[in-house]
């Protein structure tokens, strides 16, 4: 027995050690990660972000170098805090706050300490930073804007937040990412690929050369340049026209779906959201809850489309065979039903055929066409759903799939919507309950982007390409396939001609005759959209929105446009004029109607916008 004790202990000990080694080396993999963070330092080399050009090759956005002071909290040692704060011109309290945040994020991964130094500050600091352990200066590239317009289109880049870091491991604290507009949409192309260097360190954190002779290191890959479909000159002109107005302009090339101009007003200088001032400026823009400059009215503003919608009512009526081009419909100054006059109309000749109906924007005509469309079916539910089916084919009532990261779907109501709305089957509802839809009021909502899309589909006589802003990604063969695919509407091509004829008459002798531009055949449709707001919980009507959709020339159209001016009163007053000027600017390159241009450039609606906030009773539509 006595000769077994020691051999037994030796064996037990051997087994225990083997198990322990198995646990440390094979079972618990966390030691590998610890080892990597311990001995290998990762250094990033940030590539230049891709440039952005307009459709004519004009440079819109380039880069400027920027320098961040970075900190690795656990490596900060023997720091003379007061001296350091003095050097960076920050308060002791700021120092503590930033350090605490950096510790919370990670003791071993770098966090930005002071972001975006100027070149002067960098030159001064770069020599001294060496002596502060745990701090270093990281070079990045920031945006430099060559133009003062298109902020809402271009978007901006900003430091990644924690949500993004958690979702996408590519990004680390302090890195920049596209947050809005094109910068966000094409981030993957624009950013390029950051280069990585692995550096072996010793226990004093001293770098002792590349890790494994640099076999894992990568070089940074420069971001792809991109070319946008927008025309910088047209874009700039549009923003000038929209000064002191709220709303938007959006113009497409109907044959391709390329966005020529996309102006949301009010706008701001894109350079405001660059560098150290970004945060303060952003806050100021964000909290401007009255003019809401960060709210992209072209993509996010859901408005009742008003009279331009009548073109669609007519097209659906023709397709369903409930109206014809020859039939004349009477108007008695209003659309009368059941002893009531739910829709008023204005003075115009009566009765009117289809072309005349559009040219004079007769409410009765389109109310009749709409009612017949719905009542063609046994139940109003079926009628509404069929009506909606046609509208959906124009890209309405849904996010359209354009390549900008914000937007709203608008609303094309279906039978379920009205069943809920009228509490069917407790209460029944009929076509007349939804009659306002016929003239683009009622429940129908659209963004200006959707309005220009159906206008382009009319211009093309029945089809459209999805609107898009990307023209070319340098280094890539194609743009995304959905933008090179034609979408067909449910309306036969033949039905478009009379509607286009009507829209041409709008411009020639109808509601927009005074915006005529020599030498250009414009087809358009005015709109005057009623709208309401709530003041102290009470529904108050405001001055009508001024709406205009158009395309030109009549044959082989080069441009389709939608203009929306909030509280601008009747359609041709502001929106029509602006659309006319934009079309002339695009097609001719210069402006002949300088009278009209002067009116728009000098005009302001600020007084109108101030009314609901004045706290006093006010009158509208003056």
């Amino acid at each position, binding site marked *: 027995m006595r000769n077994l004790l020691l051999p037994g202990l030796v064996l037990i000990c051997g087994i225990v050690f083997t198990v322990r080694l*198995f646990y440390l080396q094979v079972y618990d993999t966390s030691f590998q990660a610890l080892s990597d963070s311990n001995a290998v330092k990762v250094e990033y080399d940030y590539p230049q972000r891709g440039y952005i050009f307009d459709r004519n090759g004009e440079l819109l956005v380039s880069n400027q170098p920027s320098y961040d002071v970075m900190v690795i909290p656990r490596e900060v040692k023997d720091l003379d805090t007061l001296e350091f704060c003095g050097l960076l011109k920050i308060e002791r309290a700021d120092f503590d706050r930033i350090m605490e945040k950096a510790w919370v994020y990670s003791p071993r991964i770098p966090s930005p300490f002071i972001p975006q130094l100027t070149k002067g500050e960098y030159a001064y600091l770069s020599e001294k930073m060496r002596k502060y352990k745990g701090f270093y200066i990281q070079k990045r590239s920031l945006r430099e804007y060559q133009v003062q317009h298109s902020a809402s289109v271009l978007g901006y880049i900003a430091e990644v937040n924690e949500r993004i870091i958690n979702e996408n491991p590519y990004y680390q604290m302090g890195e920049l990412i596209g947050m809005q507009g094109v910068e966000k949409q094409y981030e993957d192309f624009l950013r390029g690929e950051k280069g990585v260097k692995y550096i072996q360190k010793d226990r004093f954190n001293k770098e002792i050369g590349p890790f494994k002779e640099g076999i894992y290191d990568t070089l940074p890959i420069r971001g792809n340049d991109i070319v946008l479909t927008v025309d910088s000159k047209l874009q700039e002109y549009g923003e000038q026209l929209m000064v002191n107005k709220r709303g938007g302009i959006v113009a497409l090339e109907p044959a391709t779906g390329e966005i020529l101009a996309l102006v949301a007003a009010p706008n701001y200088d894109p350079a405001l959201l660059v560098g150290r001032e970004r945060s303060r400026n952003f806050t100021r823009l964000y909290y401007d809850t009255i003019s809401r400059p960060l709210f992209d009215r072209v993509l996010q503003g859901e408005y009742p489309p008003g009279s331009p919608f009548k073109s669609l009512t007519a097209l659906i009526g023709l397709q369903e065979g409930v109206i014809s081009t020859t039939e004349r419909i009477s108007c008695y100054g209003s659309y009368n039903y059941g002893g009531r006059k739910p829709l008023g109309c204005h003075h115009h000749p009566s009765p009117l055929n289809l072309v005349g109906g559009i040219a004079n924007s007769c409410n009765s005509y389109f109310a009749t066409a709409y009612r017949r469309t719905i009542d063609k079916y046994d139940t109003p539910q079926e009628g509404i759903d069929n009506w909606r089916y046609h509208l959906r084919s124009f890209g309405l009532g849904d996010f359209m799939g354009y390549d900008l990261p914000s937007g709203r779907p608008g609303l094309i109501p279906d039978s379920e919507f009205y069943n809920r709305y009228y509490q069917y089957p407790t209460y029944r509802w009929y076509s007349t309950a939804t009659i306002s839809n016929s003239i683009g009021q009622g429940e129908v909502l659209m963004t200006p982007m959707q309005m220009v899309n159906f206008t382009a589909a009319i211009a093309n006589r029945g089809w459209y390409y999805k609107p898009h802003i990307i023209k070319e990604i340098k280094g890539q063969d194609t743009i995304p396939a959905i933008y090179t695919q034609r979408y067909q509407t449910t309306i036969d091509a033949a039905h478009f001609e009379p509607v286009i004829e009507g829209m041409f008459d709008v411009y020639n002798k109808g509601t927009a005759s005074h915006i005529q531009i020599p030498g250009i055949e414009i087809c358009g449709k005015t709109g005057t959209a009623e709208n309401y707001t709530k003041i102290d919980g009470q529904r108050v009507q405001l001055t009508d929105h001024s709406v205009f959709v158009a395309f030109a020339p009549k044959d082989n159209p080069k441009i389709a446009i939608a203009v929306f001016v909030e509280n601008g009163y009747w359609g041709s007053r502001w929106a029509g004029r602006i659309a006319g000027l934009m079309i002339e600017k695009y097609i001719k390159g210069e402006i002949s109607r300088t009278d009209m241009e002067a009116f728009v450039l000098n005009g302001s609606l600020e007084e109108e916008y101030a009314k609901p906030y004045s706290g006093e009773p006010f009158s509208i539509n003056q």
Partner: protein
Amino acid sequence: MGSSGYLKIDWLTVFLFLSLVFIGWINIYSASVADTSAPFINFDLEYTKQLVWIGLSVILIIVILAVDTKFYERFAGLIYLVSLLSLACLYLFGTTINGATSWYNLGGISIQPSEFAKAATALALAKYVGDLQTNMSEFQHQARAFLIVALPALLIVPQPDPGSALVYAAFLFPLYREGISGVYILLGFAAAALFVLTLLLGVPWMAVIISALAVLIFIRNKKKKPRPSRYLLAILLCIGFSYSVDYIFNNVFEQRHRDRFNIVLGKETDLQGIGYNTNQSEIAIGSGGWTGKGWTQGTQTKGNFVPEQQTDYIFTTVGEEWGFLGSTLVIVLFVVLLIRILQLAERQKSQFGRVYGYSVASILFVHFLVNIGMVTGLLPTIGIPLPFFSYGGSGLWGFTILLFIFVKLDASNTHYQ
């Protein structure tokens, strides 16, 4: 001593010894080389110096094997006395390195006599126990045997080098083999258990547990009519011990000792300060994975994260660069060597040979246990080298002498059959 004597030596032991020395050296190379493209021979670097030590130990081995077997038995007492003297004289002429006066400085070469004292003590103990006059069941003889072991240990403790002194506990195993009561070993274990548990739970809890345990045993043994007074005495002794542990730990130990225990007991986890060694060595070993990062490819090794890596922590290089497979191989080599030595010890004709063989195995075992236990985070940080592996001339020579005297004894043993 004829030429046939060499043929009788146990080649398995020699092979295991050479394997461990070789593996040890290539790991010392990896841990100390800074630039693989620089000239190989550089006497500033540990691996070159170790190569010299290894070369010299080969000469030492030849000398040991050449000396007549009777010499070791006959002169064991003298060797022991010289060894004690060398330890005692440290207090007069010793050099202090890392706070411990354990070294003689002989013309730029440091010699650590405690490394040689183990072999001397083993010889002396074997001589005493193997003497026909000695009867290990007699208390007086037991006491003398303990004294032989305790003297060098007592000289080493105040250097201070408690780690090396602790190794002398290894002599309990040969003594147990030769017939002293198992109670001594049990008492040793019980004291260790009480020690650890007291630190973990505190004196009040220990008092409760000890009393409960005593009552349980008392009830179980009721048929044998146990005397309650003895149990009471045992309880009081245990609680007294527990209390003294608490007192010694808090009032006699220095903070760094307390910290080391607290880290292993999981009562503290300061990974930057006092827990740094253990944490870094676990990271280095753990990062090796199945097959390791490859020779000289260890990032932790290259970055010098593990302190004392060429000496006490050399096993971390094995772990990092050779992975689970490599480190298990080293464990297996050690286990086989220890078992082989014990096997050889059992077949010795003389009691002297057996006691000596047992002492060799026990000393190597305690080094192995404490060192690997320390680097894998199972035991507190106690700085003793891994035999044949760790960098250091004194250590390598000490273990070589220890082992090869036994190889010589074994060779003669079979030769005379």
